[in-house]
């Protein structure tokens, strides 16, 4: 039943399972913090906790179907909490693809090392923003810059936070 084992052809990479409700609670907590923290710490808006959670569970579960569905679920919730100027599907599409990519890569590589997690999160953050820009430009006809220094800084900050957050989330795994 486990697709991750089927597609990678290398059964030495472990598929991690989590405690009951861990994925749902972590997801909701990430969304709650994302929509509350910047009231008190404006700089915290640079973090994209829902994206980090999508990446983490994608890399850990290593099942592309689960990864993309979780990404879609998180993305649509984030769209709903972003106000009516953000159409439902903007974050949804981006996080669906990130969920799929993360779980596909997680099925092929060992992504437990902090350096690998840092590099992957950095790359996924840039890809995620690129997907949002593509959606905005091509589907919504909204002008959006492709690249700026803020994006690189935000990607670095998110990658750094991811290293510590992922260690914390590792504790939710079943032994």
């Amino acid at each position, binding site marked *: 039943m486990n697709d991750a084992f089927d*597609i990678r052809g290398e059964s030495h990479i472990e598929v991690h399972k989590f405690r009951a409700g861990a994925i749902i609670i972590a997801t909701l907590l990430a969304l709650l913090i994302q929509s509350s923290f910047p*009231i008190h710490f404006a700089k915290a*808006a640079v973090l994209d906790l829902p994206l980090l959670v999508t990446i983490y569970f994608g890399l850990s579960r290593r099942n592309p179907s689960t990864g993309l569905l979780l990404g879609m679920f998180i993305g*649509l919730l984030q769209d709903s*909490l*972003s106000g009516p100027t953000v159409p439902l599907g903007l*974050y949804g599409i981006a996080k669906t*693809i990130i969920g799929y990519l993360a779980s596909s890569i997680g099925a092929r590589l060992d992504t437990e090392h902090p350096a690998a997690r840092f590099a992957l999160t950095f790359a996924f953050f840039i890809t995620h923003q690129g997907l949002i820009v593509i959606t905005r430009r091509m*589907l919504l006809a909204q002008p959006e810059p492709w690249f700026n220094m803020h994006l690189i800084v935000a990607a670095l900050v998110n990658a750094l936070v991811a290293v510590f957050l992922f260690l914390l989330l590792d504790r939710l795994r079943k032994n």
Partner: protein
Amino acid sequence: MVALPSRHKSLVLLAGVIVLQVLMLAVQIKRDSQGRLIRVWTVGAVSPFERAGASTFGSVRDAWRHYFALQNTTKDNEQLRRENDTLKLQLSQLQGKAAEADRLAAVLNFRQSHAEVPMIAARVIGVSAGTASMTIQLDRGERDGIRKDMGVITPDGVVGKVVETYRNEAQVLLLTDKDGGVGAMLAVSRIHGPVGGQGEPLLVMKYVANDDEVSPGERVITSGMDRIFPRDIPVGTVADVKPGNTFKQIRIKPAANLERLEEVLVLKTLRPLETKTEENPADAKPSVPGAATPPPVVRR
């Protein structure tokens, strides 16, 4: 029938899910519908936690901040310091409450000095869950008489306008959002021009001709032309001015601290109003021709 390999199954699922969401985007644009039901469910589920978090976090943060601010002054011995620390923690909690009381008093004073403008105070309980938009969420909604398109201000200046209302919550689009804006004018030269956001901390004033005199530091106030905000409410100050092709490029520093909003005032009217700038407010004339007739109230 040939069975699809597992990898292809997930690719087909990916394509299906993406197509579904693209269609959803298309429907929202075509029908100008915003998936209200999903938003109502999500906001309804999250806002009680945001509400609880906002008040708890605010008091803890105030106490913590004051604790550190006072800690450097302690030079007594260890035992006295411990006692001192305990007292300081108690003091800082009280200071946090006093600071909150000061903020609320400022809001109350503002309300009393603009008694002719019906407004309601609200607490900020959430912000946009991503960087794609700049919105805040208030702890008051349709039950408190808040409607879409109502203006939101602080005693310092304009904040934005209500873009979505729920039973007990409302979402406000900040001026700094790319879709945010307000009818404004320069306080000294009385030159009119819309002020809008760019997704950055500074705002932009548009359509001011290169020939017009604008100097950095000049105040920008509401013009009342947008039929949302009364005239003469501070919008910001001119941060810098550059000549453009036809119009000047004017950047504005917002008067209200939009990055740290805790309490705001919602203008409970959709009619253009005049603040008390004349001797007799009854003589106040609408800023827009024909504005005396109120536009229809938006109701769902």
